[in-house]
């Protein structure tokens, strides 16, 4: 076992080093976010692969072992090719097959109705595979002092476990989740290597069940509470307005409907915040527990994250993303209002004589998709800043306990890959 590694040192002269883990907060992430955003905008989003790569280079570099940075050696081109391959081999065939089935059997035929179901099962089977492969790519592209990481196992094995344990979640009312998380963590960590040395994880889900019970009861309470608040609110509305809430068509009147919509959103937001609160605490338990059970060359990881810490990072990160989006949406909206006002103040016939017929429709046909594209991107404007904060919090609360004989760690012999993460990218599985 890994625990004996140190005593194996032949002459006993090198007992190994105590490695210090630290986080050197990257400076200039906001500038990077803006530069990446502009490049993504002007390349119709394709630059995303390179943008992501530069962010990772910065984040990895902020993680220090004994003051020396981890190095991310992946490239944007690899991510791009990985995605293109998955697009060609998975997404495009699925799209064409869907079109073909609808054409051949008709949209209402049983085949066309069952096909999406089969598709979702297939895609879900690929989900775990995608997670594993993305992790493998990242480890292969992570090095410290030139020594690479790797993930030496079978992604389908992981994918299958991910799939069948997921199916059991509803059947067990969620109670399989701690066991499942531990199982998946066991699979992936025990496959992980740094150089030619293995990580070792022996976890049991037992200690997680207490916190999970709290989470489970909490979620249940939130659900019941939110439903009650909702019911009371509806009853109050009806009491106040009586039958006036309905328009002749039997539907809610628009003004009432908007009150209901805003109220519903408010209740959902409150419930979500409460959920974040409880789940942050549960996640902190998982992280600390898993770190404690992870060993490398006799050393043991130790994490001291707290629920409050995670919650603070989560909530402030959401606010940062919102601010980023507003920074874009507000000027964009002002510009749109001004353009419409100017266009309306000019005589329509003059406008058409200058710029051709239907100029307004043509302008809208071009500008509306662009505006939607920018808005969709806007929520990711400050994403790198939030990623740095999340990773920074985790790394600053992580340590390695016990000496590691660095000179014994030789370069990894694991096979290399030439493209990265296509599947994960396609399914939007992505932390960084």
């Amino acid at each position, binding site marked *: 076992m890994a625990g004996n590694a140190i005593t194996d040192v032949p002459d006993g002269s090198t007992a190994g080093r105590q490695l210090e883990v630290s986080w050197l907060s990257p400076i200039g992430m906001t500038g990077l976010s803006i530069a990446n955003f502009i490049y993504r905008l002007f390349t119709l989003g394709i630059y995303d692969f390179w943008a992501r790569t530069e962010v990772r280079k910065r984040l990895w570099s902020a993680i220090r072992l004994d003051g020396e940075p981890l190095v991310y050696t992946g490239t944007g081109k690899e991510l791009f090719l990985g995605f293109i391959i998955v697009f060609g081999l998975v997404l495009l065939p699925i799209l064409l097959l869907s079109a073909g089935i609808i054409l051949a059997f008709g949209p209402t035929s049983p085949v066309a109705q069952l096909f999406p179901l089969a598709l979702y099962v297939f895609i879900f089977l690929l989900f775990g595979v995608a997670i594993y492969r993305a992790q493998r790519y990242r480890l292969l592209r992570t090095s410290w002092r030139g*020594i690479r990481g790797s993930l030496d196992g079978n992604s389908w094995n992981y994918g299958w476990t991910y799939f069948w344990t997921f199916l059991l979640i509803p059947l067990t009312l969620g109670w399989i989740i701690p066991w499942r998380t531990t199982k998946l963590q066991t699979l992936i960590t025990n496959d992980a290597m740094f150089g030619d040395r293995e990580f070792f994880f022996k976890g049991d889900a037992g200690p997680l069940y207490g916190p999970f019970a709290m989470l489970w009861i909490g979620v249940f309470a939130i659900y019941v509470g939110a439903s009650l608040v909702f019911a009371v609110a509806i009853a109050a509305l009806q009491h106040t307005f009586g039958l006036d809430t309905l328009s002749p068509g039997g539907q809610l009147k628009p003004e009432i409907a908007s009150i209901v919509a805003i109220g519903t959103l408010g209740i959902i937001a409150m419930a979500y915040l409460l959920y974040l609160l409880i789940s942050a605490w549960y996640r902190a338990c998982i992280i600390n527990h898993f770190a404690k059970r992870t060993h490398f060359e006799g050393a043991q990881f130790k994490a001291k994250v707290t629920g409050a810490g995670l919650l603070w990072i989560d909530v402030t990160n959401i606010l940062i993303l919102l601010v980023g989006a507003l920074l874009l949406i507000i000027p964009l909206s002002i510009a749109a209002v001004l353009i419409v006002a100017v266009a309306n103040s000019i005589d329509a016939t003059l406008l058409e004589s200058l710029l051709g017929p239907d100029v307004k429709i043509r302008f809208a046909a071009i500008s509306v998709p662009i505006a939607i594209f920018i808005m969709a991107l806007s929520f990711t404007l400050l994403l790198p800043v939030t990623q740095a904060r999340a990773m920074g919090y985790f790394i600053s609360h992580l340590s390695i306990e016990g000496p590691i004989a660095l000179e014994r760690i030789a370069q990894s012999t694991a096979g290399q890959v030439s493209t990265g993460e296509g599947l994960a990218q396609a399914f939007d599985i992505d932390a960084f």
Partner: protein
Amino acid sequence: MPSEIPHQRFEARLSDGKTADAQDVMVELTERGISIRLPGSHDPVIWQYGALSTSEPLTQHAIDALVTYAHQLGATLFVPGPRFARSLATLAPQLTASAERWRSARPWLWATAALIAVTIAISLTDLSPARTMAMMLPDEARQTMGRHMVTAMSQGHRLCETADGRAALDKLTAKLSKAAKTESDFRVVVVDRMLVNAFATPGENIVLTRGLLEKANGVDEIAGVLAHEMGHGIERHPETGFIRAVGLNAAAELFTGGGGTLGSLGVLLLQFSYSREAECEADDHALRILRDAEISAKGLAEFFIRISKKGQLQESDPVNLLSTHPVTLDRLAKALRQGGYKLRPALSAKDWRALKSICGASDKVQVPKSE
């Protein structure tokens, strides 16, 4: 350049990449590259600037640098302190963040510019790849597409069919088909839906709604609408729309990173609307067909006037005829100008009555004005 070179020495750590161990070295930035002096060795190793890469692109915020060298794979040189990193950025400007970004984005910026240029070229000329493909589709495929679209559109509603009504509809269709001079005849069905609508589907299929028949002020209106939809069919607009939708969907997946839009094609089938140009083409065909069939174009014109008035259509209709068939003054004027040929009734009064009640007796609320 040489004047800028500080010739300062820096403490650094070099790893050979064979084990995770490292040794302390002294480095110096020289004209030729980074000079690395190993302890106990006289001749320094030179890492040339052109073959260097750094773990992260160099910026003005850099606080240290981790350098690798293309001709000594696996080896890494870590130099703490911002001075080395900033000097290196001036000596090897290709390692700066802005240079790296520009290098990787440049091909895509060109590609985007080219794409925009091609799009503009396509929209300025009459090139339409989707239409070319639509024209090449085999008839059988078009028929199948059309049948399924009819099924999808009439989902949840029955198809109207009475012997007299069908005979009258066939009579009208045959007359217009003959005037349209198409290779294959059009097939028309009536769906029992109260919204006012008509649409062409691939493979010379046309769907009319019960609402359209019942609200029509005369058979000439129906003849006009049918001729217009035939125009869409002749120009293969439905097929083109479908191919374009599939293509756009694929492109959207490519740009958005996939996911989400899968399997929504069934919805797409029902959604597309025609451009103004397509409507004009269909109108031109309609007017030609009506002239050759000796039917007045006034019906079509009246229909345009009627549907462009507010209140005639339920605004909550999922498929609103007004939004899919925008009426413009041009179109109206063209239909009103048409004339100067011998007119004959499109159908006899008896046949028109049969057609109008093809869905059975109309609801009391919806009684149309009598002729």
